[in-house]
């Protein structure tokens, strides 16, 4: 059985949602790691869930990115341990420098929670074993600061290296201004690290795994991860 370590900073609130997704779909063992711990321990994957770490005061993810456990997170990242950051987790990964760019306030300045469509753009063995480039997934978003920004040369690098994981799109997969919920540059919803071992994304696949959620497209991500980790 694979072990997934879920980092819990004070104010994180989707840790049980993601643990449920990994245990139910991935058949993994999900352990919570408290932010005051100094080491994460042996993990097949490290997950940083959504929420409002440290109240998101100062800047989303900024304080979490400087908390004690982050030193070990960076060490494990350097060793190639896979990392998944969702929503606040993505913001934290960006703040630590493990992923490129920044997440700004939504261009409408309001928190948005709704279902969106996203198109798979790049491949990473660890995350997209069950998703093909061009696939359209329906998943919820729930954030106030998901407006992805990176300098033009960084965006070019992401594009040239196929490191954009997902882009917001319409139901037919067309990447349009209308389907961009928060003003993200080039509709970017999620990105990989250069070594494709880290995925950060704003949408919540963990809230799209049951019929009553309004769709089960999130299952494909977790099934793919489970298959990749087991391989």
């Amino acid at each position, binding site marked *: 059985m694979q072990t997934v370590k879920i980092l819990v900073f004070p104010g994180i609130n*989707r840790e049980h949602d993601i643990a449920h997704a990994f245990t139910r779909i991935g058949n993994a063992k999900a352990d919570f790691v408290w932010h005051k711990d100094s080491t994460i321990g042996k993990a097949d994957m490290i997950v940083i869930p959504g929420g*409002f770490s440290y109240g998101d005061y100062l800047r989303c993810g900024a304080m979490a990115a400087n908390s004690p456990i982050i030193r070990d997170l960076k060490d494990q990242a350097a060793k190639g341990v896979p990392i998944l950051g969702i929503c606040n987790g993505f913001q934290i990964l960006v703040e630590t420098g493990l992923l490129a760019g920044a997440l700004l306030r939504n261009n409408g300045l309001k928190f948005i929670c*709704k279902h969106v469509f996203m198109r798979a753009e790049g491949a990473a063995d660890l995350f997209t074993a069950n998703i093909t480039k061009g696939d359209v997934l329906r998943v919820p978003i729930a954030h106030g600061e998901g407006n992805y920004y990176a300098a033009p040369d960084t965006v070019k690098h992401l594009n040239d290296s196929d490191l954009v994981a997902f882009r917001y799109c319409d139901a037919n997969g067309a990447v349009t201004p209308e389907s961009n919920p928060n003003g993200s540059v080039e509709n970017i919803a999620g990105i990989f690290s250069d070594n494709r071992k880290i995925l950060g994304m704003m949408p919540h696949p963990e809230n799209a795994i049951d019929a009553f959620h309004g769709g089960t497209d999130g299952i494909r991500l977790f099934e793919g991860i489970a298959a990749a980790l087991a391989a």
Partner: protein
Amino acid sequence: MKSSAQPKPTAATPRPQDLPIVTAQMAKEHGLSPDEYARVQSILGREPNFTELGIFSVMWSEHCSYKSSRHFLSRLPTKADWVIQGPGENAGIIDIGDGQAAVFKMESHNHPSFIEPFQGAATGVGGILRDVFTMGARPIANLNALRFGALSHPKTRRLLSGVVAGIAHYGNCMGIPTVGGETNFHESYNGNILVNAMTVGLVDTDKIFYSRGAGVGQPVVYIGSKTGRDGIHGATMASAEFDDAAEEKRPTVQVGDPFVEKLLLEACLELMQSGTIISIQDMGAAGLTSSSVEIADKGGIGITLDLDNVPMRETAMTPYEIMLSESQERMLVILKPGSEDTARAIMDKWDIDFAVIGYTTAERQLCLNMYGSTWCDIPVPPLVDDAPKYVRPTAPTTVQPSLGEAAYPLPSGGFKAALETLIACPDLCSKRWLWEQYDTMVRGETVARPAQADAAIVRVPARDEKTPSYKALAMASDCTPRYCFADPKTGGAQAVAESWRNLVATGARPLAITDNMNFGNPERPEIMGQFADCIEGMRDACLALDYPVVSGNVSLYNETNGKGILPTPTIGGVGLIADYRRALTLDFKQEGDAVYLVGAFGTHLDQTLFAREIHALEKGPAPRVDLALERKTGEFILACAAQDGLLSACHDLSDGGLLCALTDMAMASLRYGNETPLGIALVSDLPHSAAFWFGEDQARYCVTTAQSGKMVAFAQEHGIPLTRIGTVVPHDMTLPDGSIVQVKTLKDLNERPLPDYMNK
């Protein structure tokens, strides 16, 4: 100048002898009437000092003592076999089987939200969340009932924007989904908006915590945020009317910190597992005063507090300020003696302040020590038991005669014009602009979000998480204030009946309600008449529907410059769904399904949205509420819902009548925007009257089914009128006059008004 060269500001240590001398005028400024002040003097046998005056004034405020409302509230039924805790604790509790209980309450934060909408609404959410988790429950859902002034009023846009952002800020950060509620607009709320927040929590029946139960010689512990000078006299403010200078009261509005509350929630739930707590009470209105007095009163004990030990964030605070502060995110706990270290370690883990600030005593006094002096020494029981209780004079309410059907013709543009006006009017237009700012999905248990069903539906995980559970709670908030104004007794009954009906329409067995009574100045007999009659109507409905009141809140003095709001007894209802996979939502599902009206034909147009929006008339009586018929029709719907696959959608008929209900069902078929919209082809032999299509007669539902034969037979068997209205078809809705309109067009008309208004 270098800062190091400056002397440190040393605030002089406060001394009791420096406090102002209490006078009759000062008592009046504290909101105590001359009679009430005389009663204080007689209880003490002396003049109160300034600190004591402050404590009496908040404990005897309308907000804390319910002095104008208790007499009438006692009429409400509060008992049923499934009621574990009725009114009187922090929240009501009902048994939902399998060793689980639902804990819920609704509470107003009207006055603060008008003065400072963001913080007022945010702390309203924070306060009601604490009421629920104080009892050991994990909050699983928030709802809110909001009433704003007319869209044309210059303050409405700012108030709406601030309130919604405040609710979103607090609820989202806490990780509790905000799943439902209602939002209305009416000019009577121009100077007094209503913000009623409801939280539903889940607790194991053997792990419930109460404020009662404290004994003698036990440590009194303060946990949570530090105390500052914010919110002093909030409870007193909430017990007075506004005038044009209302905004000057802004310093009495508290400031919320949802991050601390999230930590406090987790810390409290962990503390509750540790077996150290004897009793616990959150510090809400009147802060440390009401929490310590409640615990002492319910335990039949006294409390001595050493206020030097209270965690403070400002210097030189006086006991008066500390006791009256409404700083947020604080709890008062009575611990088992000797367990202080265990409890402290849990608080340390969560970085929450922990301080032993006193102990319980056999002598039933509230005694406050600080800076080496005693500042207050008053008996506990009179603060509660001798609080004033008024049977305020009531003026009889009158009901206007009906204007008759002829007063409400169809407009010149016919059904199409009427429908297009109604679905775009402020009360019926889509509230997506609001609820998309709320995290509706966190926790992953939300089965029905806003606009999907007549009530929000949230799954209930099993006690043992490994056991599959299909149980869910349905929850809704309801009130039709214009009915309550037209006929308070009928309006009170209708509010309860509509709540019950909304839960039934999801297939839930309605179990109990919380009530949030929002009214004007109780010292005016016509307002007290509205209050008393609304209660009588609610009582009748609660009894007829087996739907008791388990918690509630009263907000009076919702008046500005002598003009009161429409009487608004908001009802928060909770029901149980045995299997969420069979829960009913309102959207048309399948082309070819038959659409039926369950219940009688519409006849009543007085006080309808059709009358108000098309004819600018708000006259005549409210629709009649026949509680026996309501019960019978609802039981039929529940019987249908129990039949596998019989119903494919269900929607109650309320604002806007039958045609608006059908349009809701059609529009709801467009959930994600990429489906084929489903409308309805009407059968041709239906009446063409406005009353049939827009009447707001009660006890009615609209359902769809793929099993017409069975449906008809079932209705006959139950003696329920059933009328075929049409068939579900793709894309279009036919209107009664044969004209056709696209569902997408209607949806656009329904979605646009609020964003257009807010972006103006």
